[in-house]
């Protein structure tokens, strides 16, 4: 597939096509496997009456079973089932949005505690962070007309080279990791210590 990326050879393209299709099929099967595994793990929790877990596990298995059954009734488009639709729109959506919104409160508290100008580096980060924050909110411009100008400069000129360096480094690191994996030098994904035999 790497060669196919660089060279236009029809035979390679069809092989790569086939391999990618296999990956999609395997990924789809992995979803089913994941679902079975979740059931297995949580069934164990219930059987053992695992403290702090088993009551939640009952909820999980119940909701999983209800949604699966409702989904199977209207297999082509589960959303036409009013109960299924109601659960998604009034339970899943509300919970998802609430959880995401709550992170705003945590960030508020965490920023208050962590954003301290303990040294010059931290002070620069703190000032840049505040400027970018105020650039994102129109109130920044109301406070001082130059805040968006400086904040945009920080974001576009100051941050971009650092982010590019990070991206390039990560990409080269990934290439090296991939190459080591291909030649059998990297076995961390087997659970072994990296480079271990």
């Amino acid at each position, binding site marked *: 597939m790497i060669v196919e*990326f660089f060279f236009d050879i029809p035979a390679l393209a069809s092989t790569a*096509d086939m391999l*990618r299709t296999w990956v999609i099929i395997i990924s*789809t099967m992995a979803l089913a496997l994941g679902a079975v595994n979740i059931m297995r793990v949580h069934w164990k929790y219930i059987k053992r009456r695992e403290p702090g877990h088993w009551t939640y596990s009952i909820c999980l298995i119940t909701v999983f079973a209800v949604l699966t059954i409702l989904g199977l009734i209207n297999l082509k488009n589960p959303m036409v089932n009013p109960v299924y639709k109601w659960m998604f729109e009034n339970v899943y959506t509300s919970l998802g949005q609430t959880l995401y919104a709550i992170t705003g409160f945590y960030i508020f508290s965490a920023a208050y505690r962590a*954003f301290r100008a303990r040294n010059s580096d931290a002070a620069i980060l703190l000032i840049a962070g505040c400027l*970018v924050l*105020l650039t*994102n909110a129109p109130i920044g411009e109301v406070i001082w007309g130059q805040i968006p100008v400086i904040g945009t400069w920080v974001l576009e000129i100051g941050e*971009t080279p650092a982010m590019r360096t990070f*991206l390039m480094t990560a990409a080269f690191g990934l290439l090296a990791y991939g190459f080591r994996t291909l030649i059998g030098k990297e076995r961390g994904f087997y659970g072994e210590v990296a480079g271990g035999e």
Partner: protein
Amino acid sequence: MSEGIWNRMQRIDRRVLYWILFVGLMIPFIRPIGLPIAIKSSTRDLYEELRQVEEGEVAVLSISSGVSAWAECLPSMVACMKVLVQQNAKIIGWTTFIDGPLTWDKIVSLVPGLEEYTYGEDYVWFGYFAGAETGVAQLASDIRSVFTADYYGTPIDELQIMKDVNDVHDIKLVLSSDTGDACDYYIRQWHTPYGTPVAEVGIAMQGSAYMPHYRAGILFGMSVGVRGGAEMEKLINEPGNATVSMDAINISHIMLVIVVVLSNVGYIMTRGKR
């Protein structure tokens, strides 16, 4: 005495902070602020490029954000869809998120112009596909090898819109709405090898992550967070949820800066005494 105040400024209980933020966020509900919103170049470029789409050209909306990101991504996605509908573009939607169909349904319900569109002819929804980046790569190569039917089970060859659409070469542009790195998939698998224009509609956090790509011309535009949504709403002259939410953004951001300044004043005043 004074040292006590400085110390207290650094140790405000988190519950107090939560209440301060909560009460602060209530202010816009009682008295909306409605400050003017300046439009960033990244959002303007997104809008301008969408306005260049000609009648009958095919745009892909790839949804890789969940319902939790509706507050940030949905207004911009809706605005982008409205522009595409105004341009009489054909629209293909798919998702790498399991709750993508909910987002698609929401978008359809919020874009009035789609009523005049014919499903299957002018727009189509394929739903979820597995495989993440590999799936995106395969879509570039052959859409039919990933989807044999649309979300509702209609075979792909019976969909009028897909008659001349087989792979990446038949797509005018891609709008990737995501909360993670799905836009990278399109950059790597669609833009780099085939030159397909790609734009990002993401959460605020992604503004910095994708800025290098935008500055390098890899992304033709970006709509970042609620602010991006509000800017898009302003550009299409239809204020909506994002415009309303900007009041909350104003309050929360200024309050965050105030508490950070307070904690640092306390820290600096007590630093020499530690």
